[in-house]
C-alpha cells in the first residue's frame, strides 16, 4: 500500500512540478515523497523508478501517438537510435526513472541515519 501510494504521489507531484519547474524537479518530488512515506531503500528506489518510468513513458508515448511519430522518428535518428521511436520512448522513461529512483533512494537512506 505504501509502495502504491508513494508511486502515485510521485507521479502526480512530478507532473505538476514539471509544468512550472525544470526537469530535475522530478528528483525533488521523488526525494520528498520518499522522505514522507518511509519505505525500505529498495522499495523507495523502485517506487521512484516506476513512478517516473510510468509518467515519462506515458507522456512521451501519448505525445508521440498524437504526433503520429513524426518527430520521434527523426530524433531517434539524430541521437542515434536507428530511427527506433519505441526505443526513444523507453530511454526517455528510463532516464526519468533512474533520476527519480536514485532521489527516492537518497531519501530512504536519510531515514537510516535517524535510527
Amino acid at each position: 500500500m505504501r509502495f502504491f501510494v508513494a508511486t502515485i504521489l510521485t507521479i502526480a507531484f512530478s507532473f505538476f512540478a514539471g509544468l512550472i519547474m525544470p526537469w530535475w524537479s522530478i528528483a525533488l518530488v521523488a526525494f520528498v515523497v520518499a522522505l514522507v512515506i518511509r519505505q525500505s531503500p529498495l522499495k523507495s528506489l523502485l517506487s521512484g523508478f516506476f513512478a517516473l518510468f510510468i509518467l515519462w513513458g506515458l507522456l512521451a508515448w501519448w505525445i508521440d501517438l498524437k504526433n503520429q511519430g513524426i518527430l520521434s522518428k527523426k530524433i531517434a535518428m539524430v541521437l542515434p537510435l536507428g530511427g527506433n521511436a519505441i526505443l526513444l520512448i523507453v530511454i526517455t522513461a528510463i532516464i526519468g526513472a533512474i533520476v527519480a529512483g536514485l532521489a527516492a533512494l537518497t531519501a530512504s537512506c536519510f531515514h537510516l541515519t535517524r535510527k
Partner: protein
Amino acid sequence: MIFKKATALYFTLIKISFSRRISSLYLQLDSFYMKFIPFILSFLFTAALIVVLNKRWGTVPDMGNFLSPQHGFWQNAEPVNKNYNEAIRIVGLKGKAEVYFDDRLVPHVFAENDEDLYFVQGYLHAKFRLWQMEFQTMAASGRISEILGYDPRFINYDRETRRLGMIYGAEHALKALEADPVTKTGCDAYTAGVNAYIETLSEATMPLEYKLLGYTPEKWSNFKTCLFLKQMSRQLAGEGYAHDLPVTNERSIFSFSELDKLYPQVQDSLIPIVPKGTLFEAPGIVPVRPSSADTLYFGKTDTAKVANYAELNPHNGSNNWAVSGAKTASGHPILCNDPHLELSFPSIWYEMQLHSPTVNAYGVTFPGTPNVIIGFNDNVSFGFTNAERDVMDFYSVKFKDDSKKEYWFNGQWKPAKLRIEEIKVKGGEPVYDTVAYTDEFGPVMYDHSFSDELSKGKAIACRWIAHDESNDGLLWFKLDRAKNYDDYYAAIQSFSCPGQNMLFAAKNGDIALWEQAKFPARWYGQGLMLMPGEDSSYAWQGYIPQKENPHVINPLSGYIVSANQRPVDSTYPYFIPGSYNTIRSISINKRLENMEHISPADMKKLQTDNYSYFAAYAKPLLLKYVRENELNNAAKKYLNTFRDWNQQANAEETGQTVFQTWWDSLATTVWRDEFEKLKTKPEWPDDMTLLEALLKDSAYKYIDNINTSKKETLSDIVTLALQKAAPQLMKEEAEGRLVWTKHKNSSIFHLLKTIKPFGRIGLPVGGWSNIINAITISHGPSWRMVVHLDSTTEAYGVYPGGQDGNPGSAYYDNFVDTWAKGDYYTLWMMNKSDEGDGRVKGKMSLQGR
C-alpha cells in the same frame, strides 16, 4: 530563479539533518559513519547524475532536459490535428486583427491598419519560423561561432563575413530604413510583432533547434531585418558573382584577350531580355579607362588566391516570364516565376495573404522582413530573377605597415578606419579581428592576418554596392500596393542591391520588366580582375543612370523572359560583366515563341519542363565526332543509350546520366591540361561557351592536350571522353544509380546540414541547372508561381517545404511531394466574408491590450 530556490531548499533539508545529529556525533562516531555512508553516497550519486544530465557535452544536448516530455523535444512534437483557433490579447497591437489559417496553414491576415498588419506578420513569422530567421541573421553578421562553438571553419566563416563588411552594409541600410517614415513605421511594427512572440516563449515552447544547440533567442530588431536583406545581397550579388580573384590567377596562364574569349561577355546564342535590335540611348556616363591600364592592369600577371569559406553558389538563378493577353487564351496576361535558390528546411519562403485598408497582397514572404516578396495583389503581379551582375570589385591596397593604420592613396599616407570585430565563441574565449576600412574601396577583406600562401599577405579591399546606404526594403511596401505600371515603376526606384529582373504584369494588360539596381558604370574590362588601389584612377567613376537600366515594356513578341541571361545584346553602351546563364532562357524563348492561346496549365507544364536544349544542341556534335569502332563494349552500350534518348531529363531517364557524365568528361579533357597549371581551384569556362566553340570550330585551340606530343582532334577527345566516362557509368549502373534521379540524388537539407534526419534525401525529381526545371542537387525552384491576371485572378504556387518550421509539425515538409511531382496548389485570395469557407481550419483573433 526557481532553480536557486529549490537548490537552497534541498540544502536546508540536509543541514537540518546534520545539526540534529551533531550532539551525539562524538559518542556514536562509528555508527554515524555506518549510517551516513549510504545516504551520502546515494545523495552524491543522484546529484552527480542530475549535473551530468543537465549539462551539454559538446554537441550532445543536456539529455535530462532534452528528453523530459514536459520540457524537451517531446514538447515540439505537435499533434497532427492541432487546433489553430486562438484568441490573444497582446501589448503593441493598436486595434484588432484576424488571422485565418487555411488547410495548408497559410495565414490570411486581416488587420485594421498597416502597423497592425506588419505586427501580426512579424508575430506569425516568429511563431512558425523564429529559429531560422535568427540563425540566418546570425550567419549574415558572422556570429556562427557564437551558437555552434569553436571550429576553425566557423571562425573563418565569421571573419570572412565581417571582413566582407556585412555588418557595415547593414548599418548603412538601417540608417536609410529609419530615415523613411514608411519603412520605419512598418519595420518597427514588424519588429514589435516578432518580439511579442518571443516574449511568450517558455522552456517547453522554445523551437527545437534552440534545444538541440543550447541557446535562446535574442530580441529582434530592424537591424536584423537589414542583415537579412544583406544576406540576400551576398547570396545573389556577393563573392560568388565577382570572379575578380580567380580570373586574376588565371591571368598568370592566359593573356587578357584569351580570357576575354574563354569568358565571353556575349555568347553567340544569347537571347537577351531586351529584344535584339532595341535601340539604346547614348550613355549618360562614359567611364574613362586609366592610361596605365595596359601595363598596370591588363598586362600584369599576378596571383591572388584567397580562401573562400562561405561556399556561395554562383548558380543562384531563377526563371520568370510574362505573356501578354495576345498570347493567352483568355486575353489576359499570365506571370510566372520560379526563383532558384539553395533548397532548405525550413524553406526561405513563408506563404501569406496580407490585408489592410491599404493593401491586399498574396504570395511568399521572407521570414525576417515585412511584406509579400513574390506574389500578386488585386491589380498586378510581380516576380524576380537574379540579374547575375557583378557589383563587387577588389582593389590591391598598400599599408604602411602591419598595423594597417595607414594606407597609400593618391601620393600620401591616409589613415584607415580600424574596426575591431569581436567574434564570440560558445564555450570559449572570443576571437578578435581588426579590419581596416578605406574611404574609397571599403573594407580590406584580405590582409596578412587573413590570407594564404599564394596571396602573399596582399591587402585586398572590397568595393561592393551592398555597402552603400540604400533603403532596399521600401520596394515591397510599394509593390504590394501597386495598381499599375506607374506604381510599379515608382516602387522599384529605391532598390540598389542585389540586381534583380523585376517582372510585372497588370490586369489592364501591361507586362514589363526592369533590371533594377545601382550598377557601376565600368570601362571595358574594369573589375574583371584585381585592380590597383593606390590612387583613384581605378575607382568606379559613377553609376549607370537608373533610366538606362535594361528594360522591356509590352514587347511586340507578346512575352518577356528572364532566366539569368545577359539582359542585353552587345549594342548596350555599358560594360556589364556577370555570371550569366544563356541556355535556360533560350529554352523558355523557344517554347514560348511557338505557343498561342496559352492557359495557366500550359505555364505550369513549362515551369516543370525537363527537356534539355543543351543536350539537343550538343547531341549532333557528339554523335558526329565519336568514333564508335574504337569504343569498348560498355562505352558502345552507353552510346546507344544516348543515341536513343529523347533529351528529356526526367527522373527515370538514363540518357541524361550518360549525357551529363560524357559531357563533364569532355569538359575535363578540354580544360584540365590548361588549368592544372594554376595552383588554385579553377573556374572552368561555361558549358555553353565550350559547346559554342566546338560547334563553330572543330579545331578549337584548347582541344589539344598540351601535355602530349600528339595533336589531338575533336574526334579524339570526344571518343576519349566517352571511354573515360564508361567505367564510371558501369559502376553507377551496378549500384542502380544510372537513372537520373538516383545519379543526382536531389535532396533538401535542414539549415543545420549535419542534422540529416531533418532533411529529405533522394527526391524523385528530374531537371538540371541548364534545364527550365532547374533542380540540381540541393538547389532549384524554391517557389513556383503562375498568376493569371484574369478578371478574377487565378493563381497557382508551391514551394518545397511547409509552413511550419518545426521538424515536429505535420506542416514541416508537407508541400515537398506535391512540388516533386510538379503539381501546384491553388492560391486562395480570401475575402473576409469567406470566414465560413471549408478551407478555413483555424482562426486566430488578436487584440491590443
